[in-house]
Every structure is written in structure tokens, then in C-alpha cells.
């Protein structure tokens, strides 16, 4: 269970929030001009990185506001929280702070004896 600092209410337990998947996926302005592939890309495809992930959360059992979060998916560390109206922070802001469980490989986990 992580703590999430809602930009409107302050720090609350994760159980008050709902995750809304990847952030910055913009709904096409004119869906009709898109071909099936491009539309499918918007509807069905989301990235799922290990590490820095831009995602949306909503304070369901609170102010019910949506906001954006940058989270390290391998450690659940929240790197930044910002409002929907704020600009997307550049990834370079976080790469230097990125920390993963000691010796862990970039992909997968497993026995730490082989994590070298």
C-alpha cells in the first residue's frame, strides 16, 4: 500500500484512489479520419514499462479529481504528481533518481544469485 499525495486533498492511502492507466493518451479529435490500425492503437494499446511510467489516478473516495503521476513501476516509488493542466514532465527529470532493488536486472526478476 502506497501513499498518494492528491494535489487537491493531500497525502492519502492508496485505497482511496483508482488507477486509470497510462497518462497522456489523447483521444483523437476526429476519429473518423483514422484507419483501423491507428484507431486500434488508441483504443487497445498501452505501454507497460518496468521503471518510469506516466499514469493517471483518480481520488475516487475523496475529491473525485483526476491527476497524473510519474511512478517507478519496479518499486512503486512515486516520482512526481501533477495536475491534468500541468505540462508533462520530461523523463530526464527522473532517470537520475531511479533506483531499483539492488542488483536487479532491467527486465524480470528471479534469483538474486543470477541478478548480476
Amino acid at each position, binding site marked *: 500500500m502506497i501513499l498518494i499525495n492528491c494535489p487537491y486533498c493531500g497525502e492519502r492511502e492508496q485505497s482511496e484512489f483508482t488507477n486509470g492507466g497510462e497518462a497522456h493518451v489523447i483521444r*483523437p479529435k476526429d476519429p473518423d479520419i483514422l484507419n483501423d490500425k491507428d484507431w*486500434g492503437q488508441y*483504443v487497445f494499446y498501452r505501454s507497460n514499462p518496468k521503471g518510469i511510467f506516466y499514469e*493517471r489516478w483518480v481520488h475516487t473516495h475523496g475529491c473525485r479529481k483526476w491527476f497524473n503521476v510519474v511512478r517507478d513501476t519496479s518499486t512503486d516509488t512515486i516520482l512526481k504528481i501533477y495536475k*491534468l493542466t500541468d505540462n508533462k514532465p520530461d523523463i530526464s527529470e527522473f532517470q537520475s533518481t531511479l533506483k531499483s*532493488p*539492488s542488483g536487479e536486472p532491467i527486465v524480470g526478476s528471479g534469483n*538474486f544469485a543470477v541478478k548480476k
Partner: protein
Amino acid sequence: MSALKNKNCNYISNKEIKITFDGRSYSAYEGDTIASALLRNNIRLIGRSFKYHRPRGIYTCGIEEPNALVQILNEHNEPNTRATIKRAYEGINICSQNRWPSLSFDIGSINNILSPIFSAGFYYKTFMGPKGFWKKIYEPLIRRTAGLGKPPKNFRSKSIHQNHNVDILIVGGGLSGLLAARKLIDTDKQVLLVEQDSFLGGILNNSNKVKKIDGKNTFEWIQETEKLILKSNNIKILKNTLVTTYNFTNHLIALEDKFSGKKIDINKSELTLHKIRTTHTILANGHIERFISFRNNDLPGVMLASSFEKYIERYGVVPDEKPAIFTNNSSTISLVKSLINLNCKPCAYIDSRKKEDIEDETKEYLIKNNIPFYPESEVEGCEGNKKVEKVFIRNNSNKISSINSSMLCPSGGFNPDIHLFTQSKGLVKWDEKINSFKPDTAFQNTITLGSVSGNYEFKNLCEEINKKLSFLKVKDLNPEIETNIRDDFSIEELWETKTDKTSKWAKSFIDLHNDVTTKDLKQAINEGYDRIEHLKRYTTNSMGTDQGKISSINSLGIVSKILNKKISEVGTTTYRPPYAPLSFAAIAGRSTYEYYDPERKTPIHNWHIKNNAVFEDVGQWKRPWYFKKHETETMHQAVQRESKQTRRSAGILDGSTLGKIEIKGKDALEFMNLMYTNAFTKMKPMTSRYALMLGEDGMIMDDGIICKINDKHFIATTTSGGAPKVFAHMEEFLQTEWPHLQVYLNSITEQFTTFNISGPRTREIMRKVFTDIDFNNEKFPFMTFKTFNYKNTEARIMRASFTGELGYEIYISPQYALELWELIFKHGKDFDLVPYGTETMHLLRAEKGYVVIGQETDGTVTPIDINFNWMIGKKKKDFIGKRSLTRSDTVRDDRKQLVGIIPLNKSQFIEEGQHVVECENLPNKIKTPVEYLGHISSSYHSPNLNHCISMAMVKGGNKLMGKKLFVSTPKGTKNIPVEIVNPVFIDPENKRLTS
């Protein structure tokens, strides 16, 4: 009570208590654990082992216990309780586990003779056939003989959750934890000190290793420290609390037993689950002694050396006056000193180390006290009838001699208790000096102090603590720690000893709880399971409730020897929470039984109860399913009666659970056009429309009726279960995609109670109830609504129907709902009005061919699939899901489409969920799959048509109208011949609806 008592023990009172074990009463002292109480009464045999039903005794004196598991009969009949930590109290009733008919004579022990078939991986190799044997024979047999205690019945325990936010959490109130706490007294840090035992002190109580601290004896020092802590305003102590989990972001879970050593008061909560958030975690949770594998190392009477010492020092009970001691390290001499202090004498001191490696002090002490000393020797094994009787010693010239002894205390060294540290994702490394893994790099703000950090020597302890806590900028402490034994730790690697004897009985165990032998490890490696994680699962090594606390590092040692690798290359298995078993009751907290999920009741609920409603759960709502007219009426009879009466005269349904959302604002019209498939622009004010909501994938998400008051004001209804989802969906798009729209949403589900009244005589009833309203068809046509004032509240009547009959929906303030409901019944009596429940509602709508979202649809159905093309506002530029309706996949004409189905033989009944197929009979033995065309989504016996009607989703169904197909049945291979028809079975011209 006959075992010797250590009079110097400070933690056992003189108050005698009575306990019952396997039906016999024994005396013990207040403060005893079950184990110390039984040892006090010279009871060695406690239970039978998991697989081979071998006799087992008490092996340890703490949380690491693999053997001494008992069932507590007088509490919740709690099984698998560790006798070594559960404290006894007056009247506690305990019984042994996994034995039949009795503990000393157990039929299951035949498994020990059959052990060749129970070797590593036997679950995977045996019981493979013949077919059906698993369910009927193997599984019941295994369940009866292999296992632990009996699960409790009618379990009802209470627990609560408590949150803590602190700066520093100290895990463990032993010497290191107390020293750290003393440093933090009266600082600006909020500190929580968690101790699993009922007393602080840890090693200071458990052994005689430390003599004095700052010139005070250890008991005084602990008392003084506790007083200082309690006086401080920044440190809180939680005793009887075990930290089980160390999560990311320094979030830890600890479990407090609030009735430790007391009879449980069932009116109070027994457990508190502490959820602790902290900035820094200080782990001072110590070490655990490990055993050594030798022949019959599981016999009752084998007990770890430090545990033996703990029974003497902490519990004041001497389990045996002349034990044999077997060690590979320097610390075991303190046990000898504890015994000598009580005028007892070990019958042998067997040390595997070379004579020159053994400390001079140890050698001198043994000689001075005339204790038989066996350097460079090891225990080959032990023998005896359900207890240790003989110990076999192999000396350095490979000669085996035997001595008589009733107890054997091995010590295979110590493991820093790295469980919590690795849960926190810290990395451990192998340390040759202590011959174990110790914490290396912390991943979170975690500090390890004392023996958990691999420091077993008291002389460095203060320096280590001062150094590691220097970042907190607190004062240094340098108390003088005076020890009874030489403080340098030395150990020789020894995991198992060689054995010559090979009888069926002789086994050398590596996991006592799961009955895994060293032979199993070797066999598994031979079979190719040479990765430690695979090996663990194949052999079930260290997978018991003790999680191999005394043995898992030993198995790594043995495996590394076989594979000829370093232990650090073999690696450890992953340590996962919880550290020790955590009951589900504790996790559930207050969310149990009636508190698990709130129940939502409509304002008419009590009337339903009075009128014999049988309720159905719809989400959190309690809805009447059907009304029992008399005691013997079945559900089928009730539903047939309700349906018939509604179509004949009139019926009323409590529809209050229907979700209602009010949509207001300058841009409400544009918003509604985007959210729903329908076009609302040309819709006249004060009319309503059936509408569909899609996901962006084009699949139906919800449906409802939209009332348009004007372009800036709409009221939408949703399905009963879908209301929160639809509301959240609207909010999401308003905030994330269309923040420029000025629209305000308001959930008004509970602000309006809803009645659905329908049937040919409805109009007459409505006229009687609402005398001011003109119900003429021309004045109040289908799909329009009127708002009016009801006792100074806003009320609304809409002409709509979910039955296919003339119908009205009444929306009324909840405070007047019940009186209006009763008024309707007063007038309705003359018109044969019947209350009906959800089952009749479903039947009536199926007769009319109306779909239920979630029954006909399952998240893969588009409006086109259920012939709702007419509801799609094709001229609208955009709405959610529009583009997906022209995807190549959604325009396929062989998609599953909604059809009606009736059996050719009108007396046959079709079951919901059955498959629509082309063949008349299913092949007896299905070798090739039968082609599946679709499934039955709804099926009812229609009382109005007097035969079965079904709705089905069938591939390319639209083209199959009139075709003869078959539907499978739950039993047998003969399918039901059916015809594909239009799904509207009653009034396809909508005459009843609109007149």
C-alpha cells in the same frame, strides 16, 4: 511437575495454573508457554509429522518451531498453534495433531515404512491415474492422513486495524533494539518499538551470555531501560507484536496478540493489525539458531542448544539434567554454563571443530567441570523409541561410539534473521566468518543492528550502533557490556553428518515440518532440479508453516556441496511476507460478515419483508426477487403467477435501485451527444428516450432512459449495478478529455424512489392515485414525462415500460415513497394489482425481447449485434465508441447476434448457458470438438405463451431466422431441437405499449 526449576528466572511467577493436554490435566506456572509447561511435566512427544507421521517433540523455543504444533480446543479450535510461543493460561485445553487413534500409537506412521513412494516430487509422480481416482480416492486419503490440525468451524474472531505514522520504527526489543531506543529517548523523533515477546530484553533473558551492563545485572538494566522509555514522550512500546511484513515505501505490518497468556474475551477484539509507516526502520530482530542434519535428527528429545538454554533462563525449566551437546561453533558453551550453575552436567560435549580451533576457555571449563569432551567429532545419529535414548558419536579416526542420553542439543550456528530485510528488497551477501547470509545493501531506509547485521560479538555492539545511527545526530552511548563467555565468534561449516546405517526408519531431515530428507535433496538434483527455487518446490523444502527458519540455509549448504558451487552462487530462495503465519481474521479486520459490504435497502424494504419477499443481491442492493403468496409456493409458481397477473391486469416493481444521474449545464446537450449513441439534439423537451452507452471499443457498457427537460438539463437512468461505473465514466471524460464543457453531474439515485407500474389496467389505477394528472394516451403518450408537486417535493411520472405493457415509472421523494406505495395498493386492490420482483421483471422483458445489459451482453457485444442499429446517431460527428463500430471486426456479419429461440417440442425446457449447435446428438465420447454456434443468454417458461422462450447470441444469427438448430442439455447427449425466431415473443407491433 517434576522437571527442575531455575529459581533465578524472573519471568515465571509462582502462581500455579492447570492446563489440559490430550485430555489430561497438568500443572504449570503463569508465564509458561505451552511448550515450557509440557517440558515442565516431562512431556516430550507432542505431535506427529506431516508426511511420515513420525513422533515429534519440541525442537526450539520460539517462532521458528517446526514440530510442536498443537490445536487449541477452547478458543476458536485454532489449529497449528506453535506450542513454543503460545502462552498457557488457567484452563487452556490443547490437543496434539495429525495422529489417529492416539499420539503414541498412530496408524499413519506406516507412511514411514512406505517412504520410498513419498520421496521428492511424489505428488507429481504418483496418483497420475486411472482417471477419476484422484477425486474419489487419492485426494480424500491424502487429506485424511497428510496434514496438520483440523480447521475451526463457526470461526468468528474479532480484530481491528490501527495505523501508525512514525519517524523511526525499531523492530525487536532485545539488547540492540533497547540500546537504539535509549539513544533516541527524548529526541524530536517519534519512535515505535515493537517486540514479539511479552517482555523486553531478547537475548538478555534467553541466555546467560551477558553478565552485566553498566555494572547492573541484565534484569535490572532492562527494567531501567523500560522505565526510561515509558517516561520519555517520544517512544511507544508494542509488546506481543510481531512484524510480519516489510513492504515498499517503508510500510510495515505487525500483528499484536492482545490476549497473550490470558483467556480470550470473545466480546473484545483479539488481534490488532498495526499498519506502520515510518521514515527509517531499524531492524534489530536478531538471529535464529540452525540445526544439523544427522540420522534421526527429528526424534523427540533433540532440541536446539540455544533453545534449551532459553528454557532454563527465560522459563526456568530444565528440560533435561544431562543432555548431550553437539556444536560446530563457539557460542554453545554458554548452555554448559547455564547447566553447571544449576548443578546439572551435560553428558557429552561434542564439538566438530579441530582441537586447536576450540577456544582455550572452553576446553579449560569442560575439563574443570569434568564434562566428557569430544573434539573433532560429530553426532552420527541417535536412536530410541519415540525419544532419544542413544547418541552415536563419530570421532576423528572415524570410529563410532555410543552414549546413553535422553536429550541431544545440536547447534549448527546462527543465521541473521534476514527475512524482513530481504522483504524490503535489501540485498544479502554470504559471510564466511559467521558462515551465513547477512544484510549487505539496503534498498530502503533500513538499518540493521546487532546479530541481524551479522555482528554476534557484544564488544563491537555499541560502536556499531553509534556508527549506524550517527546520521540521526543523537548522543553516543557506550555502556560496558560484561559477558560470561568469550566474545569472539568462531564456527566451522557443518551441514550434515555422515551416516553408515540405512534402514527404512533412519532418516536425516533437512525440513522437519514438511518431512523433507537430505536424500530427497540429492534425488531432486539428480532428477535435474538444480536451481534452488525449483528444488524448493519439487521437494517442498522450507515450504511449511515455519518456512524453514532453522533449516533453509542448511539446505543451501548441502546443495552447494552437491553442485560443487559456492553458497553465494546457489543463492537463496525469495523471502516473501508474511514472516510467520498471519490469520485471515487479522487481515480482514472489521470487514467481516455483515460488515464486509454495506447493504443498501430501498424505502419500501420493510413492506417487502412484511409481504414475504425473497431477496436477491444486486450489487449492494437488496431487491425483492419474488413474493411468496403462501408458505408452500415455489419460486417458479410465484414468478408464473406474478407474470400472468401483470399481463392480465397490473403489476408493480420497486425500481428504486435504478441509478439516476442529473446532468446540467450550458453544454449538457453536447455532452450527452458524446456520451450516448443516441442523437439528443432533435429530441423534444419533456420526452424521454431509451439510450445506449458504449465503451471506446464500441461494446455496450450500459443502457438507460434519458429524460430531456431542456438542452441544458437531462436526467439519465442507469442499470442498478452500473450506476457508480457510469457516473465515474462521465466524470472521467468531463475532466480528462472535454474539460472545456460546462457540465455538472449529480448522482440522485437515492434522492428519488422509483416504482415501475405496468399492465393493461395501470391507467385506471394511476387515475385514482394521481387525480390531478391527465393520463389520456394523447395527453400523456409513450416516452414522455410530467413533473409535478407532491406534498411540496418534486415528483415525476414517466410513461415507459420494461414489460411491453402500458406502463409508468413514478419518481418520488423517499420520505413519501412508502405512503405512496401503500396508496397505490389501496386503489390497486380493485384492479388486481400484484407486487412483483426481479425474476418476474426478467421474464416479462424476455417475452418482449428486451435485453438486459450483462445478461445478453458481456462486454463483447456491439449495438449492431443486438439489432440496435436504430439507436445509433449515425449523423453525429462523434460519440464514445462510434469509430469502433466501423472497425473490420465489428462489421463482420458472422458475429454473434441476438436471436430468439423456441423448442420445437413445446413441452421441452431450454437451460440458460447451454450451447447452440448443429448436431442432433453429441458424440458419446467427444474426440473432435462440436462446433459451437452460440449460447443461450436468457431462458424462461412463458406463462403467457405457455412454452419455453429463450434469447441467444448466435453466430450470424440474423441470417438464421426460421432455421432448425439444436441446443445442448446439462445431462445426456441428446440435444433439444429448436427454431431460431425473432426475439420479440409478445406484441411485436408495440400496440400494448403505445395505446
